[in-house]
């Protein structure tokens, strides 16, 4: 072991490879690695698995937006499924009434849901507290009713159809769709990654940690919160439009409250505020309801009533237990391990502070903003 430790210390002292410091370059190089990996993955997998990879991709988009809102800016949305519905229906209406290419349709879906987001976000900034949470919950619960009310426009129970985009003949349609969705996911992650390292990202965090201090530092608090919420709702809209492409159509039953719950649980399990953690969350959202929960139910021979509700119960437990026991999620746990392993191998035996300082602030809102809250409301 001493041998290994010495060797590792030698490596650590003189790294053979260093990621570029410039955020754009660094994020692009991560993305390049991901592109190569995902290309070979989608080639290897069956058409159905490609479809699932595509699903993971659009949940990554939605989760990235949500984790930025909650983990980085300290606001919460219980109804991101509602904004996905806005994006999905926008795309479907454009398909119905125009003959455009899929790219402008996706762009308009993003803009529309960002604008709806602004409509909800602006009044919510007038007060601190749980207003945004309640209002977003209302969006998610109320939207299906709205599409039912105007069913001639939104297609009623049947909904509207969204045909899959057709690629080159040599590539099968599932794979082509998965590539479109993965491309969107990577682009969103690169853009959000850069955003978080920019002036905007810093003001998002400043507002989260202390609104009064942020406004004293010259940050327009309300505007910052609205921008964060619009970015987040826009991501959800894009995800909803991509979901519509996967599903081949949209109707009001396709965006139930459970999607919003899945998203929240996916964010918590991945690690709130972590753009890498969203992949864990997306995998959970895709596989838990359709494959893991049913096989668990099979294994324990429970009746159909229980198995139908098992996924929802597990997601509820993830939210409650995750928040109480492991607010950092999977990414937080990995970071915990990395810091300790790093401490073992580093020459002076102290944790690699650079790593923890760089990474820690992104999820502070959820697990240690005690100082802020206590000053705010002592003793509660």
């Amino acid at each position, binding site marked *: 072991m001493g041998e290994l430790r010495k060797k590792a210390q030698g490596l650590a002292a003189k790294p053979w490879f260093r990621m570029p410091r410039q955020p754009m370059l660094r994020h692009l190089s991560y993305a390049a690695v991901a592109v190569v990996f995902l290309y070979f993955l989608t080639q290897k997998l069956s058409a159905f698995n490609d479809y699932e990879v595509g699903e993971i991709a659009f949940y990554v988009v939605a989760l990235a937006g949500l984790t930025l809102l909650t983990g980085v800016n300290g606001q919460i949305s219980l109804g991101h499924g509602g904004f996905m519905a806005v994006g999905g229906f926008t795309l479907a209406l454009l398909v119905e009434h125009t003959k455009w290419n899929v790219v402008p349709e996706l762009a308009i879906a993003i803009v529309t849901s960002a604008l709806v987001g602004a409509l909800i976000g602006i009044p919510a900034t007038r*007060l601190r*507290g749980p207003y945004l949470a309640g209002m977003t919950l209302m969006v998610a619960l109320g939207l299906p009713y709205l599409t039912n*009310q105007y069913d001639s426009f939104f297609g009623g129970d049947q909904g509207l159809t969204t045909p899959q985009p057709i690629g080159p003949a040599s590539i099968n349609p599932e794979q082509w769709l998965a590539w479109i969705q993965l491309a969107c996911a990577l682009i969103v992650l690169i853009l959000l990654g850069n955003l978080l390292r920019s002036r905007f990202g810093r003001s998002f965090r400043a507002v989260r940690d202390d609104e009064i201090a942020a406004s004293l530092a010259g940050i327009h608090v309300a505007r910052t919160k609205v921008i964060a919420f619009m970015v987040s709702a826009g991501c959800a809209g894009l995800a909803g439009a991509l979901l519509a492409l996967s599903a081949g159509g949209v109707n009001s039953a396709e965006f139930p409250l459970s999607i919003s719950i899945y998203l929240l649980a996916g964010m918590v399990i991945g690690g709130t505020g972590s753009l890498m953690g969203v992949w864990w969350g997306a995998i959970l959202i895709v596989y838990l309801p359709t494959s893991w929960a049913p096989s668990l139910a099979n294994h324990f021979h429970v009746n159909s009533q229980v198995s139908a509700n098992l996924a929802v*119960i597990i997601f509820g437990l993830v939210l409650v237990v995750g928040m109480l026991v492991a607010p950092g999620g999977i990414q937080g746990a990995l970071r915990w391990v990395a810091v300790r392993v790093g401490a073992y191998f580093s020459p002076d035996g102290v944790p690699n502070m650079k790593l923890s300082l760089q990474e820690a602030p992104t999820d502070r809102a959820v*697990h240690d903003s005690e100082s802020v809250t206590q000053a705010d409301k002592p003793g509660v």
Partner: protein
Amino acid sequence: MQFFLNITLGGIATGMIVAAVALGLVLIFRATNIVNFAQGAMAMMTTYIAYAVLHKGSGYWLAFVVALATGLLFGALTQVVLIRPLQGKSPLNAIIVTFGFLIFLEGLAGAIWGSQTRTFPAPFSEAGQKIGNTQIAFSPFDVFVVLAVLALMILMLVLFRGTDLGLRMRAVAFAPETARLLGVRVRPLLTLGWALSAAAGVLAALLVVPTSSLTPNFMDVILIYGFTAAVVGGLDSPVGALVGGLATGLSLAYVGGYLGGSLEPMAALALVIVSLMIRPEGLFARPAPRRV
């Protein structure tokens, strides 16, 4: 005219139920700055228990009392197990935990009782009354709804304004640290607040279930109406909860009656947006200075 009158009466009955939900939300928000999104689901679970008691052959009133008592216990237990560990953490954690608990309870209810709808009886006739020659849509059950919620409000008023316990609860809600320094035991009072709030939610559930039928998610929409009422009235004002509840119930009844019932949830959202734009603190809330 008769249509308008009937809608108005229906709106008042709904408004009283919404006011009870809002009162439950306000009780908790005043004391702990948390909106309990699980309140509706907790009341739903209790209503299923009342349903089971009813089907054991006991009368309505026994089921009613059992439901309220279970609700009190459930609220206290929730506070001790789930909410107490969140003390001093970011309010976001509490929102996520109560929302997760909502989902968990709805899944659990679905697993135990299935998702089929059940009918829950009303203690009084739900048929409208004839006064002279005009049929009005205000049944004896609606009278019971109004009286029950009024009784709840009066009980709360007496508790908070007239008793020593109520004074201590108000002190805890207003300035917890100071109250603790003066010898008030803060934690049991917070637990009591959660118990009372859950009971208010259960009352609302029992009043709404005869008209809406029992399913695992029958309280979802009532909860968001209660939230609307609480925002309109001011999230920390019990009087505001009553007025906000009536305002919400009436506005939704007019929207539902004249424009279409499916628009009600969105109308509630519009009401929240408008009231936050015009009077962000709500109608009755005290202005809250923010500590730096």
